[in-house]
């Protein structure tokens, strides 16, 4: 616009402060040298301002810029990933500071600062971060207001007030846009590989040690809200990947070209709503065994639920399951072969044992019992830190170490079953969960990860068997924390000690859950649901746009009314007090006439209330002194005026009539 508008000293301070706030969140994942360089540039810019030094020349800045880009490239081996591009943006922004003095430069920096703020959400979208980032947004806006005033001399108070006003008045508009702006489900293009790196969860295969490693994480896997009572802890098996293929050490998923196994529910189905944390895999956890699927999902033959795309954002879905059931009354020959597959050699002792059982006990039920009894009675031990196993892992575990986590028990049990001719498969998932009394929902963490076995019996179909329960019954009855003797390895939130900490945590989790459900999880589906609830009909895009436009217009009109109303002149505090005194008098029947002066009121009141005559006279004198006396002059001592005001106030308050 104009040359007269040149940013001032205060503008620079606001800009640097706000940018530092915006960058601070990134410092945790930037390489140290990047953070140090950014702070250095900011300090340098501040010094330039203080000392009134000249801006650095291009021949100095250009090599620094190139070095910075090269540094980022060497650090991340790319310039385009999520981490690399954010680091690059931050570094370039701080460099841009070094050549910024005009209003235009500042505007660019402020907008880039806004953008940098939004990139923080790529890493974390928690309530904390959301709240914290309002600070840089406030600071940047204050700076924007500051530079729109000539010579950058707007007072700090005024610029903060205006920034706050702008943002507060923008809040209702934001809410409307958030609720009604048509959401397009992302992604629009391929997102960088590293965007979902940090997600943890179950895998499509299971090696000894996988689940125990996962159990060390206190991260939430999903939260469940039941319609009705929460089922008993021992029924809370959350079905995840089903593994068929055993390679001698680990279990793997199998191809999915079989018919879906038939489920016959016994008793009432349980309905619930899941909020699954993103894990970058396609499967959706469901209560064992799912019977009604969330919309738009698929069912594999072994009744595992798959989403069409890997779950990369928190996902909310409804489901219904039968905890009592008959699954797959008949098994085709291909399925049978799959369920009996074993590698040709290895684990001779386990094989011999299973074959001996098959010979002696004959029925599957008795073989299963024999195996479970073995786990129960032969000194097996449930631990997070089992010893390393040799080449014949099953033999090693069953006959020598006897110490293991759920994957060891499930794996060896399934092995024994298959060796004894009983179709068996491994199911991984989660078991149990913690009820949050604050929100009446269940929190299931990675530490609840579990593996169990399903065996197929001709009379009952697939039957769930949990060999871990034979070793450590409390694991399924009351959770992992009671089942482990060495539970100090578990994340603190999965343990029972620190009751107050847990309570605090559960409260916090309830808040967070609400945040996830209503803020982070708000998507196209919920948007249309909301609109349908308002209009009572099925909502569509056009309606959404109509509502959005309408509500925005309404908001803008309301804002206009608020902004353009005539501001009332502030009432003089002395007059306000005097009006209270008149109100007190009128209760005693002394009405002030229109245009009647204070002195005439004093005379009438003094006659009617002789006991208060002195006070009334004093009140009138003080009032007149404040309003019309020498104190009313602008150069009067504010101190004296305050004293008079205080006396008037106390007199009027004490005047009891």
């Amino acid at each position, binding site marked *: 616009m104009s040359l007269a508008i040149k940013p001032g000293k205060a503008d620079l301070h606001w800009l640097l402060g706000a940018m530092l706030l915006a960058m601070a969140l990134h410092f945790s994942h930037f390489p140290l040298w990047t953070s140090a360089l950014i702070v250095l540039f900011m300090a340098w810019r501040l010094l330039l301002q203080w000392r009134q030094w000249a801006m650095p020349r291009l021949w100095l800045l250009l090599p620094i810029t190139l070095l910075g880009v090269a540094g980022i490239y060497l650090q991340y081996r790319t310039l385009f990933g999520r981490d690399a591009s954010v680091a690059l943006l931050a570094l370039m922004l701080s460099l841009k500071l070094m050549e910024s003095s005009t209003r235009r430069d500042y505007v660019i920096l402020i907008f880039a600062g*806004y953008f940098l703020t939004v990139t923080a959400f790529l890493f974390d979208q928690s309530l904390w971060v959301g709240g914290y980032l309002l600070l840089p947004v406030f600071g940047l806006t204050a700076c924007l207001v500051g530079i729109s005033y000539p010579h950058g001399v707007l007072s700090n108070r005024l610029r903060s007030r205006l920034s706050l006003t702008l943002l507060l008045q923008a809040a209702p508009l934001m809410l409307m846009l958030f609720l009604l702006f048509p959401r397009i489900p992302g992604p629009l293009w391929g997102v960088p590989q590293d965007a979902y790196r940090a997600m943890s969860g179950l895998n499509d295969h299971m090696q000894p040690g996988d689940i125990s490693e996962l159990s060390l994480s206190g991260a939430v896997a999903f939260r469940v809200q039941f319609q009705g009572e929460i089922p008993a802890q021992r029924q809370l098996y959350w079905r995840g990947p089903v593994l068929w293929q055993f390679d001698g050490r680990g279990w793997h998923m199998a191809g999915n070209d079989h018919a879906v196994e038939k489920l016959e529910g016994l008793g009432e189905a349980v309905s619930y709503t899941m909020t699954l944390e993103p894990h970058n895999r396609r499967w959706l956890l469901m209560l064992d065994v799912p019977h009604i699927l969330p919309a738009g999902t698929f069912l594999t033959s072994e009744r595992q639920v798959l989403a069409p795309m890997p779950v990369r954002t928190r996902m909310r879905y409804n489901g219904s399951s039968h905890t009592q059931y008959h699954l797959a009354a008949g098994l085709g020959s291909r399925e049978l072969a799959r369920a009996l597959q074993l590698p040709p050699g290895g684990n001779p002792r386990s094989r011999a044992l299973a074959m001996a059982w098959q010979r002696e006990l004959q029925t599957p039920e008795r073989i299963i019992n024999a195996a479970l009894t073995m786990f129960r009675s032969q000194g097996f031990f449930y631990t997070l830190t089992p010893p390393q196993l040799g080449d014949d892992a099953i033999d090693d575990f069953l006959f020598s170490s006897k110490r293991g986590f759920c994957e060891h028990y499930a794996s060896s049990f399934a092995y024994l079953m298959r060796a004894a001719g009983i179709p068996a498969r491994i199911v991984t998932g989660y078991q149990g969960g913690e009820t949050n009394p604050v929100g009446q929902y269940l929190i299931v963490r990675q530490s609840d990860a579990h593996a169990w076995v399903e065996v197929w019996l001709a009379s009952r179909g697939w039957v769930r068997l949990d060999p871990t329960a034979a070793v450590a019954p409390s694991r399924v009855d009351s959770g992992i924390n009671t089942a482990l003797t060495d539970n100090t390895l578990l994340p603190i939130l999965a343990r029972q000690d620190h009751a107050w900490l847990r309570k605090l945590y559960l409260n916090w989790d309830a808040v967070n859950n609400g945040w996830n459900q209503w803020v982070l999880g708000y998507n196209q589906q919920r948007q249309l649901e909301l609109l349908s609830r308002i209009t009572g009909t099925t909502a569509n895009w056009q309606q959404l746009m109509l509502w959005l436009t309408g509500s925005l217009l309404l908001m803008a009109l309301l804002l206009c009314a608020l902004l353009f109303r005539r501001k009332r002149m502030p009432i003089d505090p002395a007059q306000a007090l005097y009006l209270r005194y008149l109100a007190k008098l009128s209760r005693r029947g002394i009405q002030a006439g229109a245009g009647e002066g204070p002195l005439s009121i004093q005379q009438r009141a003094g006659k009617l209330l002789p006991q208060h005559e002195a006070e009334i006279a004093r009140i009138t004198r003080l009032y007149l002194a404040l309003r019309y006396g020498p104190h009313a002059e602008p150069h009067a001592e504010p101190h004296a005026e305050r004293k008079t005001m205080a006396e008037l106030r106390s007199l009027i308050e004490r005047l009891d009539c």
Partner: protein
Amino acid sequence: MPSRAGWGLAIVLFAMLTGAINYTLSLGFILTFLLAGMALVSLLHTWRNLAWLQVEAAPPPAVFAGQDAILQITLTEDRGRDRLAIAAGIGGQEPLFVDVPANGTGTLAIGSPTLKRGWHAIGTLTLSTGFPGGLFRAWSKLEPGVRCLVYPRPASSSLPLPQGNMPGRGGSLSSQVGDEDFAGLRLYQRGDSPRRIDWKASSREQGMYSREFHAESQQQVWLDLAQTPGSDLEQRLSQLTSWIMQAHDADQRYGLRLPGTHIAPAHSQAHYEACLRALALLEAE
């Protein structure tokens, strides 16, 4: 209207929105919408910052060509709100800024350069503001409806004032009476030197009196366009302007002869202005 910064923010917001969609960042949506809302609110604030300001423009005092015509404008605020950083400019000039306090007034003197003698029309006055935020610019164009009288440009190298070579009762009488020769009192006229005010007489009587001296009342000079050297009309007018200024400053009585206009010799501010005005408005042949 969105300023360049406003368009810039629109682009940044679009980028943020695309990012939020692509990565499904709910908080990204929130921040984008918050900033979009902020921009919209700032539009209203910017508009309000300018709305209902009353503008008064005083007729600018006459100037010599080449000087700036000074338009004094007064902005009156009666809505109870401070109006900050109101920019005012004439034509395409660099604007000046003023703050108008709530229920108060702010004044600005805006100069616009003059080139030619005669009536100088004050160009369109543009009041604008980008405050707060600078994302939008509210503006209002006004025709001030005033004009400025521009006297001819005084000659840069002036010839000395013609003395006594004028026809009629010229300066031949000039040597008779000295400056100190008191001739009587006359009513004070604007432009009389304060040295000449008879303070004693003024305090006695009603009104102000200036002492009049013989030298003044009798020494007079006629300035005639026809006898003024110069290559063209404008140059001669410049020379006349220059002489009028000299004579006025030297407290001489002078008269002016122009085609179609005769102004009898006198010495006063009003006379001075009348002469210059006649020069300014003289029609070119």
